[in-house]
């Protein structure tokens, strides 16, 4: 089986400095083995051998919203790159950077990479790097939902143009970015002078589960009116549940919630205590995209309560907790009612009404 290739999704609003960052990285000899998929044809002249351009071509899945759409262009570019690599027509690359257009939301691309068999087999789980303009970033996040979504989806937020921004601007931007995405690592750069290669090289490939678990263990409950972080209409809210969750209830509730409100449930991360499981379950989603939950063998500490952090836009966070608890209780009740039921074939009582065992009709018995 072929070696898996590290994948990075480089995103950021128009003019934030994504391409400058990418160009700076690709100039280094150590990064010549990087394949690049650029989502805006003709925007820049990247002098690079392993370059593919794609124009946005989106297929919306039946019943899905915009963020459930499959990006056909990314699939095609990816397939072409790997075909050329396997045929020896281009040098073997060891990482892929997908540079999105400035107004693209990252989730459809992540959804595409998750659904695509080639990406699943050949790529390491992609990391999202979001470039945020140090001067205009705050205003952009407030005005454009796409910019806010780029930050909430990020694993790493690179604040650019730090040499042009004031200390107050950078502080306010950091606070807004942390409020929208408490898990992202924030790095400050000067695109002209910073050692961009070192920055990029320090971003490990693949998911950082250990970091996720540690940050969730440190999570305490918040009351949205009093202490939840607010930035624009994006709210970060944490809940802590003392009782283990019913996995069936959580699955039904979450699928229903993401179907109805997925475009406004920007991120969810949770360390869940699930009935019957010895260790915690790490759950993560971004809009409608749910990462496969990771069921662990043991808890890392004595505190075995569930902790779930929601980043939502335009949703009353209190209702999330109330609703989850109601589904959990209803699941336990529905199951206990079901245990009282027997199939009609055995006779007995069904839903409180007596049912006779079916007998052979008289006209057959003769």
């Amino acid at each position, binding site marked *: 089986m072929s070696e898996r290739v590290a994948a990075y999704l480089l995103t950021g609003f128009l003019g934030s400095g994504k391409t400058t960052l990418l160009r700076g990285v690709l100039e280094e000899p150590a990064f010549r083995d990087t394949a690049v998929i650029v989502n805006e044809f003709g925007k820049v002249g990247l002098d690079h051998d392993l370059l593919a351009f794609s124009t946005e071509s989106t297929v919306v899945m039946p*019943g899905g919203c915009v963020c459930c759409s499959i990006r056909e262009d990314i699939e095609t570019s990816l397939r072409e790159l790997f075909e050329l690599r396997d045929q020896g027509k281009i040098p073997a690359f060891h990482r892929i950077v997908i540079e999105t257009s400035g107004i693209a939301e990252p989730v459809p691309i992540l959804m595409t990479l998750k659904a695509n068999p080639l990406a699943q087999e050949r790529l390491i789980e992609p990391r999202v790097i979001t470039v945020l303009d140090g001067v205009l970033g705050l205003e952009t996040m407030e005005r454009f939902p796409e910019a806010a979504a780029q930050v909430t989806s990020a694993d790493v937020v690179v604040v650019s143009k730090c040499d042009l921004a004031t200390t107050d601007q950078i502080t306010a931007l950091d606070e807004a970015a942390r409020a929208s995405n408490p898990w992202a690592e924030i790095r400050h750069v000067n695109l002209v002078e910073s050692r961009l290669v070192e920055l990029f090289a320090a971003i490990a490939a693949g998911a950082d589960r250990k970091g996720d678990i540690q940050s969730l263990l440190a999570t305490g409950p918040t009351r949205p009116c009093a202490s939840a972080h607010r930035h624009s209409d994006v709210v970060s809210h944490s809940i802590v549940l003392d009782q283990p969750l019913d*996995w*069936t*209830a*959580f*699955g*039904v*509730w*979450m*699928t*229903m*919630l993401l*179907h*109805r*409100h997925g475009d406004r449930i920007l991120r969810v991360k949770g360390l869940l205590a699930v*009935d*019957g*499981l*010895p*260790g915690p379950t790490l759950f993560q989603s971004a809009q409608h995209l*749910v*990462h*496969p*939950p990771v*069921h662990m*063998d043991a808890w890392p500490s004595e505190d075995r309560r569930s902790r779930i952090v929601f980043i939502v836009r335009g*949703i*009353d966070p209190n*209702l*999330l907790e*109330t*609703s989850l608890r*109601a*589904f*959990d*209780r*209803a*699941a*336990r*009740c*529905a*199951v*206990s*009612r*079901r245990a009282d039921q027997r199939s009609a074939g055995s006779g007995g009582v069904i839903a409180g009404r007596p049912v006779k065992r079916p007998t052979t009709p008289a006209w057959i018995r003769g």
Partner: protein
Amino acid sequence: MCSLCAALGGSRSWTDAAGKAVFAQGGRAVTTRDERGRRVALLNSVLGYYGLQVSDWGGNSYVMTNAAGQSANMYSLGGIWADADRLASQHCDPLDEELIARLDKLGTAGGAG
């Protein structure tokens, strides 16, 4: 594959516990039949609010019907909600306070009994 409807088996979902060794209830692994039974029971508690009923179709898919007798067949839990919206002629919302109150009432009645 179901020879009657040519269905190629249900699609796997992140919600599935059956078949995963880590899930054990009272020392027993979760079976597909048990898991789907629990899921259908909860779905009926929720979708009953919208006048819908769900049943398991051969351990492979779900069938949902409304009071007018219209029905839909779907293969995964995630696929249920779009059809629920269509058959209920409204948006099924887990944050609907009336639905939450109804589920609370069901949960309380179950706890009392």
